[in-house]
């Protein structure tokens, strides 16, 4: 087990270094002089301005030196300064972490709950019209653009029925619609997985044994069958967190919510490169770390996993 953990950790380090190099190079891949790009919008740009910005950004030094300086700063929690807001990028991101985290977690809870209910229902009534209906619902789930689903939810539940506020203060009520819009796609995937693994498990002999013992059907499903379905869902959670984090960018825009996604879009549209760079770097690091944690927890849950 510890060898597996160490291997997994060692694998993550070169990926993280590669990610940092890629994000560092982003700045240099921008067509034209990055110093000029930062000065764009200023009425008059003199050579002096350009030299000043270049020196400020360390662009006059060789690339490897620039990278090491950049990494040194990052490791000290310094992600540079926003060229628009003139504030530290790390602080700006820090302020927006909580709302995005709330949205992502809420979406995951919604997705797993709906997915399990839908998947269990179709597995139990496999081959009936209920199963077909659930299949159609999950097809819509994966095919519907999240931003349109978001707008439909706002239209029906906020504007028409008035059940949930669109914006402003409302606590958890503000989180419901965005969480559904963000989690729908994941819910559909969970539903398919749960259905497939339940159907597989229900054919096993120990289920027959459980039934033969005279256990009630609900006990058989909840105590014996669903547990196994849980394992297959855990494996895809790591991957899906990435999709959710990315999807949060879109959903935050739809619902005009505060958050890192909103910050990223503002950054891209206003050409605030240090800000975008910081968000992209953090996003990738968080994703790699979460996947590491998921793999590790999976190894703890499933004793069959060995160093492989």
């Amino acid at each position, binding site marked *: 087990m510890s060898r597996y953990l160490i291997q997994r950790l060692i694998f993550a380090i070169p990926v993280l270094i*590669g990610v940092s190099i890629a994000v560092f190079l982003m700045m240099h891949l921008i067509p034209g002089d990055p110093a000029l790009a930062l000065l764009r919008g200023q009425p008059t740009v003199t050579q002096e301005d350009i030299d000043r910005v270049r020196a400020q950004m360390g662009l006059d030094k060789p690339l490897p030196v620039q990278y090491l300086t950049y990494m040194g700063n990052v490791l000290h929690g310094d992600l540079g300064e926003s060229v628009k807001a003139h504030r530290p990028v790390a602080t700006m991101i820090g302020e927006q972490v909580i709302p995005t985290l709330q949205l992502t977690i809420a979406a995951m809870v919604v997705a797993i709950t709906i997915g399990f209910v839908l998947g269990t229902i179709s597995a139990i009534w496999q081959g009936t019209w209920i199963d077909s209906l659930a299949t159609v619902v999950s097809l819509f789930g994966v*095919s519907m653009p999240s931003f*349109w689903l978001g707008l439909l939810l706002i239209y029906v539940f906020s504007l028409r029925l008035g059940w949930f506020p669109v914006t402003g203060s409302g606590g958890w009520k503000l989180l419901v619609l965005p969480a559904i819009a963000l989690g729908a796609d994941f819910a559909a995937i969970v539903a398919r997985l749960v259905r497939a693994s339940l159907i597989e498990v229900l054919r096993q002999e120990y289920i027959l044994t459980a039934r033969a013992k005279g256990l009630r059907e609900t006990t058989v499903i909840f105590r014996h069958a669903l547990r196994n379905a849980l394992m297959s869902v855990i494996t895809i959670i790591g991957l899906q967190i990435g999709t959710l984090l990315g999807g949060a960018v879109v959903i935050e825009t739809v619902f005009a919510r505060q958050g890192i996604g909103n910050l990223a879009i503002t950054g891209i549209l206003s050409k605030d490169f240090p800000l975008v760079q910081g968000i992209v770097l953090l996003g990738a690091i968080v994703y790699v770390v979460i996947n590491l944690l998921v793999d590790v927890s999976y190894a703890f849950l499933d004793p069959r996993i060995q160093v492989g």
Partner: protein
Amino acid sequence: MNANSSPSTALIGGTQVTSHQPVTAAARSEFAKTVRKLARNRGAIAGMLFLVAIVLVAVFANTIAPFDPLKQQYRDVLLSPSRTHLFGTDQFGRDVFSRVVVGSRQSLAVAALAIAIAASIGITLGLVGGFAGGWLDMTIQRLIDIQLAFPGVLFALAIVAVLGPGLRNAMIAVGLSLVPSYARLVRGAVLSTKELAYIDAARVLGAKDSRIVLRHILPNILAPIVVLGTVSVAWAILIGSSLSFLGLGAQLPSPEWGLDLASGRDYLREAWWMSTFPGLAIMLTVISVNLLGEGLREVLDPRLRAR
């Protein structure tokens, strides 16, 4: 599994009519069998018919659209759907039906070009890495690992941040973010095909590496590529329209589904039709692609068929 009886060979046998290889009667009948099997899948057929319809709409958009999608009519602002304006009008009095019809061009173009970019780069990387092995394969694999560390649309966003917003750059961003799926799929398929006896036979006969890869390996792994190609169209349309929705893809005033949905967002209370019809267009297209993709997978994927 016997490679010669696999459905992929059959498909190739049927489509590769122009090559010097004579198409055998057996291969042709295998292809016909594949088509017949696909025809029995009602979902796949419905999806395919709808996609053909959408492509036709895109091709003849200017003839089908009753109004100029860019023409502003201040007398007809925010009209609800009627006989004249099937899908209503927007805040500038433009005909929403015409915009959805003409907008299909940009949405489909993004998907088509993105897939072309992803497939050409991804398949090349997968073939080269899988066939050559060694340090070259290692390097490609590590680069892909790094790209996959950027979750979901974050990679596409980073590309747009570097290149700047715009339809062309959105296509490139979506295309590049799909490269890893192609590269990994092709590499895996090459690795499992490379050791088969007929490849050894070709080598013994003195075939060059490039010939072995292009004439013997690629045709035999086309089936999974076709399935991935179909499924990734759905992803490309969703991500492409998301980028436009965020203001990073197609730019105003040109009609594009994602972009028009974004304009509809500001008029949700007054004009539900502004966002509903572009949204329906995206969803129906994606559903069709998914249905067709699932049908193709069932017919072409030997692993699924064996079950």
